[in-house]
């Protein structure tokens, strides 16, 4: 399978801040790829570099085989970017905005163009607002128009930089249904989000960035297997305390103790220790591994040396 995005040894410094410190990344055609990291990790800088908004200090990036600097025209035609900021041009209606965006990509006025604009509007539930001025739209609707703008030129690669920030649940679901469909139709999707459950359910592979470096890169399933564990959550009854041996392994958060474990066979010895110590419980719960757990471990540097995974 060919690369939709190829990032090789990319560095970028803003003053004293090393935003990207030698990033290598490959996103395959047709993938739903997640780019995660805390604020300031370099996600938006990397996306900006892909889109030609940021000039690299070194390294090179290709989108669908087109170099983003040497062959910038073709590279930009392959890419649709939904920016993080809620930006809009207050002079135009939704339809005008989309027609203008088509023109920027050299798409002339035609029935096919108008039909595609109508289809995008319908899929994003914007048809009734097509002739409304951008200023008159709610934040969620403006966000949908940003998605529509990124899609007008039918780019094979779509990059969404935190598209659901501040968006209500209903719209989030509508948006993901549409993006999933585009992915099924063959579009490569790259997503950055702070909602880790979204990344977990949508992305086939995930890269985690920290201080401008890729610190974890693998399929979502492998990341969950490699870095996350099940969690046994115990809430002792009032006055009861965990036995000392368990206290060493447990983390306390608001009165609930969490003990990580890999195999279910490890639960019985824990319960035996509790019984032996006469520790009665109010509540007991077994939690599944999740991406948040992986994220926290990776970002805290709890990954063992050499455990950085590349796929």
């Amino acid at each position, binding site marked *: 399978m060919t690369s939709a995005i190829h990032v090789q040894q990319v560095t970028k410094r803003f003053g004293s801040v090393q935003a990207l410190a030698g990033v290598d990344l490959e996103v395959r055609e047709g993938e739903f790829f997640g780019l995660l990291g805390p604020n300031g990790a370099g996600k938006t800088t990397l996306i900006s570099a892909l889109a030609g*908004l940021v000039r690299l200090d070194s390294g090179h990036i290709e989108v669908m085989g087109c170099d983003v600097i040497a062959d910038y025209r073709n590279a930009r035609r392959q890419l649709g970017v939904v920016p993080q900021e809620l930006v809009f041009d207050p002079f135009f209606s939704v339809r005008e905005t989309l027609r203008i965006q088509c*023109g920027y990509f050299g798409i002339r006025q035609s029935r096919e163009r108008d039909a595609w604009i109508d289809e995008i509007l319908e899929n994003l539930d914007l048809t009734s607002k097509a002739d409304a001025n951008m200023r008159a739209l709610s934040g969620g609707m403006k966000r949908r128009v940003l998605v529509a703008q990124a899609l007008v030129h039918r780019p094979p690669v779509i990059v969404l930089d935190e598209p659901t920030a501040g968006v209500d649940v209903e719209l989030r679901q509508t948006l993901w249904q549409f993006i999933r469909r585009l992915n099924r139709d063959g579009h490569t999707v790259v997503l950055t989000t702070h909602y880790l459950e979204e990344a977990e359910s949508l992305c086939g592979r995930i890269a985690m960035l920290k201080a401008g470096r890729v610190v974890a890169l693998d399929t979502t399933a492998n990341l969950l297997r490699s870095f996350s564990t099940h969690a046994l959550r115990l809430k002792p009854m009032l006055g009861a305390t965990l036995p000392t041996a368990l206290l060493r392994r447990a983390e306390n958060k608001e009165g609930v103790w969490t003990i990580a474990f890999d195999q279910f066979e490890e639960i019985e010895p824990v319960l035996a220790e509790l019984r032996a110590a006469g520790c009665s419980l109010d509540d007991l719960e077994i939690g599944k591994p999740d991406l948040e757990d992986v994220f926290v471990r990776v970002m805290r540097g709890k990954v063992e040396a050499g455990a950085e995974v590349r796929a």
Partner: protein
Amino acid sequence: MTGFSTLFYKEVLRFWKVGFQTVAAPVMTALLYLLIFSHVLEAHVQVYPGVTYTAFLVPGLVMMSVLQNAFANSSSSLIQSKVTGSIIFVLLPPISYRAFYLAYVLAAVLRGVSVGVGVLLATLWFAPLQFVEPQWIIVFAMLGGGILACLGVIAGIWADKFDQLAAFQNFIILPLTFLSGVFYSIHTLPPFWQLASHWNPIFYMIDGFRHGFFGISDVSPWQSFTIVTTCFVLLSALTLEMLKRGYKLRA
């Protein structure tokens, strides 16, 4: 549509949608200048023989409107889209820096000329005008509008906030246009200010433009043409270089 024609269309649509502010208001301002200055000075000043002061004033006001509005268009469009972040919509598509330059400059010239034509039509009733050498009218309107449009692009890209742009406009552009012979002939000035006026490129734009109406000017229209063309070429080169490098547009 190509990237260039769409960007040009967008820029024209942008000012046209707020036509009262961008076209009608400057015409009104110029008309007020004309009414006040001609009322006060008509009986006292005759700059060129056989040309009334009001008739002398009209081409100056027309050209001043062309220049100020060409600058206002490109500069305000750029600073607005930079501050709001919507500049990203023209930076993401495959639009070349040359197309970017042409679209912004031509749209700004179009707004300047639209206002200029509006001022000319509105003032026709007040003074009988001649069009002795109309080719100079067109040449200087285009070149002057082009120069101020380039300055608008440069200022719009350079400025990070509206305050900086206002400083550029009020401390550089406005004094240069007001002190360029719009309201007087530089021959009426003391020697020092006559000399200083010769270092103001806008003086040559106004003088050459006025020559097109009356066939009379303070300096030869060819001298003005040479200076104005040189300024246009230099400023265009600077604008294109800034856009090519992505100065303050691409980090």
